[in-house]
């Protein structure tokens, strides 16, 4: 239980994508010229299994645009690794779902960032005439739900879709996915260059939580929040998950401790949402095992230094557990990993003190 290993791996197997989403942290679009070959990727599958990886999310870009994705999924599943696909849904045909199932994929997650107008405003097709990404995503969710496959829906919460989260939940409740996973949009990648205010303000977290609680009370679609939403209020156990699932309160960023991110060119980071400063190595230059074994490359977590906390976080009662919340969000917002404005506990305390 106490062994450090990459239990959860998010692997962006290609940067190619047929959408140009405004918020894409990976700024995905064209296939990178130096993406891992099939042979290299299969070796990486084995390396992950050897390191004790329990579950891998094949992501992108759009993973289905990489022709050998079934091979990778099959290799991972054959080595005992649970495989999930995270897709924008535009290529998730019934055939693709069957392929996934045959390759050993046990769960598919489709991104859906709002109702039709909002989703299509965010997730722009790369080519004209490609149709509504919303329609295709919803069709993909229905296809996956109808298959013997776990189906998840992932939503980036932002200022555009915040007012329609209840309606989005109602839509999903009518379709019946196994989980609705929500996360905050982060100012990274393409999002830093959009011209309109997109990120929610920290004080809007209260509004987010109110909506999430309404969904939880309804209960038709299980809800989960990712690691960049929280932290430490009475709402935490409700939105973080069940105690018996071990995720009912935030225990600090797990990047480089039990989570690993891999980019399409073999770059390794503690978490895929981290920026290039966090790259710990490349599997072309050294083995994944060697990269992972060098804890110093993941020092932001493996050698966490709480004395560097600043601002509100430095004096917070939860600082030793929380460690400024999501490392990626803190870094992308502030430029350091030691203070995080996106914390509901902080918002409430500051509001009580008359500050926003």
């Amino acid at each position: 239980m106490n062994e450090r290993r990459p239990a959860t791996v998010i692997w962006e197997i290609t940067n190619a994508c047929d959408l140009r989403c405004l918020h894409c942290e990976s700024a995905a679009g064209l296939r990178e010229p130096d993406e891992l070959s099939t042979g290299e990727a299969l070796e990486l599958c084995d390396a992950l299994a050897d390191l004790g990886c329990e579950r891998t999310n094949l992501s992108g870009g759009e993973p289905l645009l990489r022709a050998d994705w079934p091979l990778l999924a099959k290799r991972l599943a054959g080595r005992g690794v649970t495989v999930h696909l995270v897709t924008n849904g535009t290529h998730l045909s019934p055939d693709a779902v069957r392929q996934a199932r045959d390759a050993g994929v046990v769960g598919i997650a489709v991104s859906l960032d709002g109702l039709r107008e909002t989703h299509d405003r965010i997730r722009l097709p790369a080519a004209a005439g490609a149709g509504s990404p919303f329609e295709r995503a919803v069709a993909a969710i229905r296809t996956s739900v109808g298959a013997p496959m776990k189906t998840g829906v992932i939503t980036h919460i932002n200022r555009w879709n915040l007012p329609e989260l209840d309606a989005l939940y109602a839509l999903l409740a009518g379709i019946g996915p196994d989980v609705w996973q929500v996360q905050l949009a982060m100012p990274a990648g393409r999002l830093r260059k959009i011209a309109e205010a997109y990120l929610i303000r920290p004080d809007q977290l209260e509004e987010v939580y109110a909506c999430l609680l309404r969904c939880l009370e309804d209960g038709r679609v299980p809800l989960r929040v990712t690691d960049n939403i929280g932290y430490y209020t009475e709402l935490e156990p409700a939105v973080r998950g069940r105690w018996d699932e071990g995720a009912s309160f935030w225990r600090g960023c797990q990047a480089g401790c039990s989570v690993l991110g891999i980019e399409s060119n073999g770059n390794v980071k503690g978490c895929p949402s981290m920026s290039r400063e966090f790259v710990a190595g490349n599997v072309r230059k050294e083995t994944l095992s060697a990269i992972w074994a060098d804890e110093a490359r993941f020092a932001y977590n493996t050698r966490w230094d709480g004395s560097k906390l600043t601002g509100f976080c430095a004096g917070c009662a939860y600082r030793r557990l929380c460690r400024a919340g999501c490392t990626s969000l803190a870094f992308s917002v502030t430029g350091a990993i030691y203070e995080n404005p996106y914390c509901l506990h902080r918002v409430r305390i500051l509001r009580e003190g008359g500050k926003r």
Partner: protein
Amino acid sequence: MKPEKNDVGAGAAYLKPTVVQGIRAFLDENGIASKPWDGAREILDRLFACIGSRIGEPGFRERLETLLGEIVEGGGFLPTPEAEILRQAEVSAMIGDIERALRPEGAASGHGLLERLQAPALCCMLLIAMTAGCDAEKDSRQVPPPSAKAAASPFDVNGKSVLDYVQRTNLPDWMKAKLSERLRGMASPERKEIIDLFRTKTPEEIVAHLERMAEAVYRKDGIPALSSDAPVYKGISFPARRA
């Protein structure tokens, strides 16, 4: 709710970087790598070390002026105002230091920012000293210097231990020792109350409870042990069973 025009500011096309992000980028452009786990203080230290050693290099002064302009301009479209983790006073002091370094005669002989930041800490120290009445104790000049253990006190101001600040002052040793002693005495005791509900307990009680729970999932060396299949950004996690 679509974004309003005044959410962005006229003509804004990008999210503005925070001051720390701007300095990181400046250092990077000048070939000075920062670790992602460097804090704001380390980034500032590195900036002034860079200025001190390279102000005479061709083109450096111009790049520094550009950075200064961006910082002075500031106030742009930050992701959120709270993202600016340097206080206004710190930014103002830094601007002054950079401006001095840019003057023809202004050699950056170690930045003055740290010294500036000591001011609030010093005020705090002196206030404590006054309220504690340490100046009334005749033998207080015999108090030995603070131990290494004392220097690890959790009292932080601007990311630095207050005890560090004490040692950096020009106060006599006996006063430094006395102040350090008083500070150590103010440390909060470990809280061991048992709690069970977030809603009904104080943050301190809750954190104690959580920390005990965390003992089961953290290694003794501070590295988090494996968590369960908790959702990770850009990934997906499925509940064990439907609620």
